[in-house]
């Protein structure tokens, strides 16, 4: 049985300017994905929707089916696994077409955190409420996600023996890739001096360690049988998830461990080894997370120290393991999991222009939710699996 494939990709411009509604952005991305796939609306019979978990007045929902003028559907769901949603959604679509639930499924994510008169940071600061554990943390000054990830980063560096130079190397590498990506938000070349001169947000995280929020949307079409003569399909070869139980008490670590199962499940189902991955597209909300995930997923060749590998240019253009080849969410755009997926598809189609990785034919795409709590992975390839 041929693997399901992603046969259409559509995106809006990724803008750091406020304005626009998520719903409208989603409609534009859907239109673009259908056009890219050479499909008419009535040829799609499934829609999966993912929205930002932040509180937004215009979160996209299953109402999008009606709003976007889609016809009678056989599959319609709004998924929610925090930041892992987008990648898991594509896996869900692949399983659905394989099971005969639908023939062609649109998967869409849209978000518009930047509003007139307020930064994306302000949108995140005001989310979370005042009850439960999150309410207790917010009363302690933990607004938005940066302070929490700063705690994770501080712990990760201490536990791994890493330093701020490791974070710097990730930020510089991401920017080097972004220079070649016309859709990236930050395309000015960056060196270590520029990194260290950037504003500190929450130690050890500087502004250049944090993802760049945008207003934007992306949609893909997953089909059981690729449409002939349009874009080269990207086959969904492997799927995996992991939701490790970790506890907020000692002994042991509270935030690390358990994610590797997701990658190993995906690789096993794809029938390829880590060494068979041409590109790796990680969910990188913060530079420290790239380090954590390379470590957690066991992606450093020969199992060497992550910091040393990254400082040596291992994940940068020309490195032995091309990672986040469009600049990731750090320097590209933060579209909560659509970023790694869009980049993988662009690379596998050979349409990545100046940043194209020669011969890229297999990709690992990962989604991440919560505080490294939810991992979802896809292995994509240019050749159909068996």
């Amino acid at each position: 049985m041929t693997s399901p494939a992603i046969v259409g990709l559509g995106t809006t411009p990724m803008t750091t300017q406020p304005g626009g509604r998520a719903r409208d952005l989603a409609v534009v991305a859907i239109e673009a994905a259908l056009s890219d796939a050479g499909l008419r609306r009535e040829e799609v019979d499934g829609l999966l929707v993912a929205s930002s978990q932040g509180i937004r007045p215009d979160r996209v929902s299953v109402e999008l089916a009606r709003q976007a003028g889609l016809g009678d559907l056989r599959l319609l769901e709004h998924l929610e696994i925090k930041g892992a949603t987008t990648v898991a959604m594509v896996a869900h679509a692949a399983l659905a077409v394989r099971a005969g639930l639908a023939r062609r499924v649109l998967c869409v994510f849209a978000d518009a955190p930047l509003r007139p008169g307020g930064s994306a940071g302000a949108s995140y600061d005001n989310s979370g409420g005042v009850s439960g554990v999150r309410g207790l943390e917010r009363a302690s000054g933990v607004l938005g996600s940066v302070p929490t990830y700063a705690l994770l980063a501080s712990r990760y560096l201490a536990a791994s023996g890493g330093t701020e130079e490791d974070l710097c190397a990730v930020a510089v590498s991401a920017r080097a890739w972004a220079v070649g990506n016309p859709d990236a938000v930050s395309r000015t070349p960056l060196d270590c001096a520029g990194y260290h001169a950037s504003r500190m947000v929450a130690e050890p995280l500087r502004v250049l360690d944090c993802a760049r929020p945008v207003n934007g949307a992306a949609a893909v079409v997953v089909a059981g049988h690729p449409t002939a003569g349009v874009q080269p399909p990207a086959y969904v070869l492997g799927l995996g998830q992991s939701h490790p139980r970790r506890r907020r008490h000692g002994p042991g670590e509270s935030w690390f461990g358990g994610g590797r199962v997701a990658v190993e499940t995906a690789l096993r189902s794809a029938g390829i080894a880590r060494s068979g991955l041409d590109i790796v597209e990680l969910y990188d909300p913060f530079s420290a997370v790239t380090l954590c995930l390379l470590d957690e997923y066991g992606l450093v060749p020969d199992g060497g120290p992550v910091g040393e590998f990254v400082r040596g240019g291992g994940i940068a253009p020309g490195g032995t393991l091309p990672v986040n080849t469009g600049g990731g969410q750090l320097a590209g755009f933060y579209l909560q999991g659509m970023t790694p997926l869009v980049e993988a598809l662009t690379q596998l189609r050979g349409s990545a222009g100046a940043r194209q990785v020669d011969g890229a034919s297999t990709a690992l795409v990962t989604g991440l939710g919560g505080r490294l709590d939810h991992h979802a992975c896809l292995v994509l390839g240019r050749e159909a699996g068996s």
Partner: protein
Amino acid sequence: MTEHPADWLVSPELAPSFEGTALAPLFEHAERGELAMPFCAECAEPFELDQEVCDRCTGTGAHWRPVPPSGVVHARTLVHRTASPLLRTTAPYPVLDVELDSAHRVVMTTLEPATRDWQIGDRVRVAFRRVGGVPVPAAVPTGDTDPTKEEPA
């Protein structure tokens, strides 16, 4: 509406709402000046603040009891971004993940504005700030460092 003394860090609108929630015992004990944490009612395994079922014995229900108000810094940050109108300070402020001597890990800031550079392994005593009148755990330095906690496992 009752007027409360202002907290040094956050606006009173961030006062935790706890009545009828899993965390209510934390605040009820705190009103008496006690730091309480949840344990498995069956086998006394430490629970997360909102945990219902025990990992070890599968017993259900949390039993909250007072614990020593002391611990060690497990992770630390100093937040420099203070632009939010929810904050009352313009100076960088600490956020610490404190591992209590009871093993529970709780994120808190400090009782007073930052006066020192916190490090992983620093010993702390836990007291309470008041945010909109609600007691919230907060760290106070003891000046000691726990040598066993400086190098994480």
